[in-house]
């Protein structure tokens, strides 16, 4: 592992959290909804399927809900929020000199292993996020802030699932 000069340059987590809380509050006050990412990823993905196989989208109830018939799955505020998240991440990355093509991984695994794990983890995460009707941002963060019972249960389940498996995977990260 190359020693990490970046780590010290991240903002204090409590300051970062406070800023994130302010963004979240602004989202609720201005749009009545919180933050999210997986819903928009779902819409982009459905848009791609619609281009490739439009009829399939219309016949699948789950896809048709956002993209059936003349519905445009991308015409939704959450997609703009996703675009904004990319732009914001890029701006902050540029400002702090952290934009460079690289793979972040544990010291004992190869880049290929890391990428395979990333894909597998992403797929599990994407599936779980739709099952739970939201990801860490949409359910845990936003639902947590409005004190939704389901979101709090979800949040502890996410941490529970990750901690339960962490020990078995320690070789991959440490």
């Amino acid at each position, binding site marked *: 592992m190359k020693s990490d000069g970046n780590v010290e340059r991240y903002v204090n987590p409590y300051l970062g959290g406070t800023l994130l809380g302010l963004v979240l509050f602004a989202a609720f006050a201005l749009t*009545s909804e919180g933050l999210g990412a997986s819903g928009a990823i779902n819409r982009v993905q459905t848009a791609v399927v619609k281009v490739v196989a439009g009829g399939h989208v219309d016949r699948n109830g789950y896809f048709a809900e956002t993209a059936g018939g003349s519905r445009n799955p991308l015409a939704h505020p959450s997609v703009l929020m996703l675009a*904004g998240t*990319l732009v914001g991440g890029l701006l902050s990355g540029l400002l702090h000199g952290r934009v460079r093509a690289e793979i972040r*991984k544990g010291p004992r695994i190869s880049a290929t292993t890391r990428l395979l794990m*990333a894909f597998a983890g992403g797929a599990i995460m994407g599936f779980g996020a739709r099952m739970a009707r939201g990801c*860490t941002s949409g359910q845990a963060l936003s639902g947590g802030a409005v004190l939704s019972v389901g979101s709090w249960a979800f949040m502890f389940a996410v941490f529970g699932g990750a901690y339960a498996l962490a020990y078995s995977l320690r070789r991959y990260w440490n």
Partner: protein
Amino acid sequence: MGPLNLTAEWGTLASWLTPLAIGIGFGAVLEMSGFGDSRKLAAQFYLKDLTVLKVMFTAIIVAAVLLGLSSALGLIDFDHVWVNPTYLVPGIVGGLVMGVGFIVGGFCPGTSVVASATLKLDGLVFLGGVAAGVFAFGETAGFFDGFWRSTAMGRFTLPDLLGVDAGWVLVGVVAMALFMFALAEAAEAWFGRGERPRLSAILSRRPMAIGAPVLLLALALTTAAIGQPDAEDRWEMHEAELGPKLADRSVFVHPREVAELLADTQVYTLVLDVRDESAFNLFHLPSSRRVAPAGLETPESLKLLKSAPDNEVIFIVSEGEGGATEAWKILAASGVQNVYVLEGGISRWREVFPSAADVSTHSDHPDFERKVKLIKKAKAAKGCG
């Protein structure tokens, strides 16, 4: 009063630019906090670097306290704030699955977007995986649709669950978060740096460590002391918008129109009679239900009435119009849609329909104006998670 209706108040362009701007803030804060780095995220689960927990819970308590306080002060109508509906078991199962995905893949969907923006290849590949997983869910959702829709509890918050004012729940949540932060600092010292965790060391390293939590706790206590708005407060908040409907009598419906709608098989009707029991027993409208006015204000009955389908009309009935109008104010100010008052009350009804047989013989009477307009509920579902 918030939350803003962006399209109505600032135009369509603003309704598109605002989520973009919020997204930029979201992405920037995630990146600044180090959430673009999978190793930093994964370290959470080896107790070496608990940034994820600290950032997330700080954000939740800051936003929750600001929302609770704004609601208590009447600046934001919490009824119009989106609350993720609870589907308890699918939520927990999905959460466990996501936890597994988190430790395997090193990201959650939002953080992988930020990682991709800063060209972390593992982030990009993870994002591709998310799209594949989302696709797989769409393809298979039909097989476990019943499970996915099970244990639905609708809009259900911790204050509803615990039956206490939201302010006190906030005090509890803030206190719990602060306790977790202390544990997190201790864990980082022990597992991350191999030091003995000492409270004094934690506090001396972070000069803000006392001030900010004290401020947040004070705000939560203030929220609890003010209390969330009751029916009367809510009417005051909404009087400017709802008062005119009473003044121009557009919510007072002629008995003949009520009778028509009761017979109409295309609409559901709910007739709520707010008179006392003896009056109700002597005479009441067909298929009406007696409710005590105080019973209308309870969170359970408001929730039930608000979840009524779009084609349900609610009529409130009293002897004259007085009692029903008071009940209308409670329901309308709480955001219940399609609520009307029987014009002239029961006494007028009995003048128009002297016997039960007259009710069914209604024919076209041009001498009254039809007023009921079914309003579609503003928000059915959020497309996002």
